[in-house]
């Protein structure tokens, strides 16, 4: 699915943020990626959807080496990887429903309005379908971002600090949605520095916790 073999990456030449990363996401598994701020969690996720390319090592997504992908190939890859970005990344001039439907629109697919209503209902945003993104609260924006991430029924869902700006209740509501997704067979990778959140989720679902420390990736200990 997503495999890294001895991958390294640095934003500047000679300065590596990540090194020797070896990772294999297990299909259908719930994963956490944790580590302190600035440790490279977002960078690792960006590598996973080919927004960045590794300096060395091999990174393959769905069996394709991302370094050799064409621009159209990258677009196709991103249709199979749903991403909930930390800053949600909406088009503020379009209503929530159209933002959620964007992946369908840009891939030339017809939007099924009934399915759209179901999806917005699932993330509890049915009443906000016509609202513009700036009018939503942080939790609503994250749930809308999750709806957009899953509308193409991707094989993998990546979430980058999705609860960063949310209170505990709202965070757990969002995590419940991700757990539901995982139970339908989707592979989930959530980057977060909130260890309490990880523990709360692990109480409900089997999850693998990966920790970035010192630029390398480790499997977290039993405390998580």
């Amino acid at each position, binding site marked *: 699915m997503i495999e890294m073999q001895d991958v390294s990456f640095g934003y500047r030449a000679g300065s590596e943020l990540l090194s020797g990363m070896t990772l294999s996401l297990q299909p259908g598994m719930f994963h956490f990626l944790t580590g302190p701020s600035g440790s490279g969690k977002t960078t690792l996720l960006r590598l996973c*959807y*080919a*927004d*960045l390319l590794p300096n060395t090592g091999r990174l393959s997504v769905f069996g394709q080496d991302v370094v050799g992908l*064409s*621009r*159209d190939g*990258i*677009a*196709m*890859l*991103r*249709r199979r990887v749903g*991403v909930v*970005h930390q800053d949600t*990344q*909406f*088009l*503020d*001039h*379009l209503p929530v429903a*159209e933002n959620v*439907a*964007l*992946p369908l*629109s*840009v*891939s*030339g697919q017809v*939007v099924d309005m009934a399915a759209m209503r179901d999806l917005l209902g699932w993330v509890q945003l049915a009443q906000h379908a016509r609202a513009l993104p700036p009018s939503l609260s942080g939790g609503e924006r994250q749930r809308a971002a999750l709806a*957009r991430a899953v509308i*193409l029924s991707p094989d993998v869902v990546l979430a980058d600090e999705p609860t960063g700006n949310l209170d505990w209740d709202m965070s757990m509501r969002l995590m419940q949605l991700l757990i539901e997704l995982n139970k339908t067979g989707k592979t989930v990778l959530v980057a977060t520095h909130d260890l309490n959140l990880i523990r709360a989720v692990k109480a409900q679902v089997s999850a693998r916790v990966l920790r970035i420390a010192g630029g390398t990736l480790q499997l977290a200990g039993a405390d998580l």
Partner: protein
Amino acid sequence: MKRGEFRTLSIRALWQGLVGRDGGVGNRIVPPTGFTAQLTLFSAAAMAFLAVFALALALATGRLAERWSSELAQSVTVRVSAPDGDQEVLTQSVMQILQTTPGVGQPRLLPDEEVAELLTPWFGPDMPIDALPVPNLIELPIAGPDFDSEGLRLRLEAEAPGAILDDHTQWRRPLVSAAKRLRALGVISLALIAAASAAMITLAAKAALAANGQVIQVLRLIGARDITIAIAFVRRFTHRAAIGAGAGTLLGMGAMALLPDMNAAGGFLTGLGFHGWGWLMPLLIPVVAAVVGFFATKWAALKMLESVR
């Protein structure tokens, strides 16, 4: 990413995206940008308005050159000068020569009143023409391609000394040359207007694309192909350029139609307008503007997409 990949933004695919039906969100992913939109519309309209006049100038000067060239080439004049007693005899002799000259029509000896009329601008209406040694003038229409101007000149020199053939070449040539230069100026003006339009539309498109860098980034992140993004912008700007140019062209054509009556003012200005099928030519201006908008936006979109992975 390799630069060659941007060749996938083929003109054919862009064209299909441009003319294809897309009333949904694909047409709305580019945010409405009021100022840029108005700037593009206004620029295209103003340039099209000017282009109508440049086109009219080019067409009018072309017609003028043609008219001067053809009208003056349709006849020649023979001047007959001789001492008083011999002038009538020589004139008769010249008339006989002209009547046997191939490729010409019936020669016509200008009567004294007509000659006086021709001289009036120089001598005034009251000058007694009879008192002046004015030559007889014979107008000879050219009727066919076998007319040999040089042959007739030599024959007159030999058989009727004092008769001089004037085929108007001497003063026709600079007039035709001037008209042709005016036409070239009209064409150059059209080219400059097209280039200025392209520059303005490109600037407007680049400004819009730069302002929408975040939009492009989001679209790429959710799996949009370059061609999808480019079509959205190309469609928006091509339509704006065509609509603006269409309005400018209609205004320009209206202004041309309101020019003074062709025969009333006289002179060069009488020809500044469109005739018959010529009225269809300005309708090409919005098409050209759309083509310019298409390529200018395509170029600007490529530049912008290069900076987004």
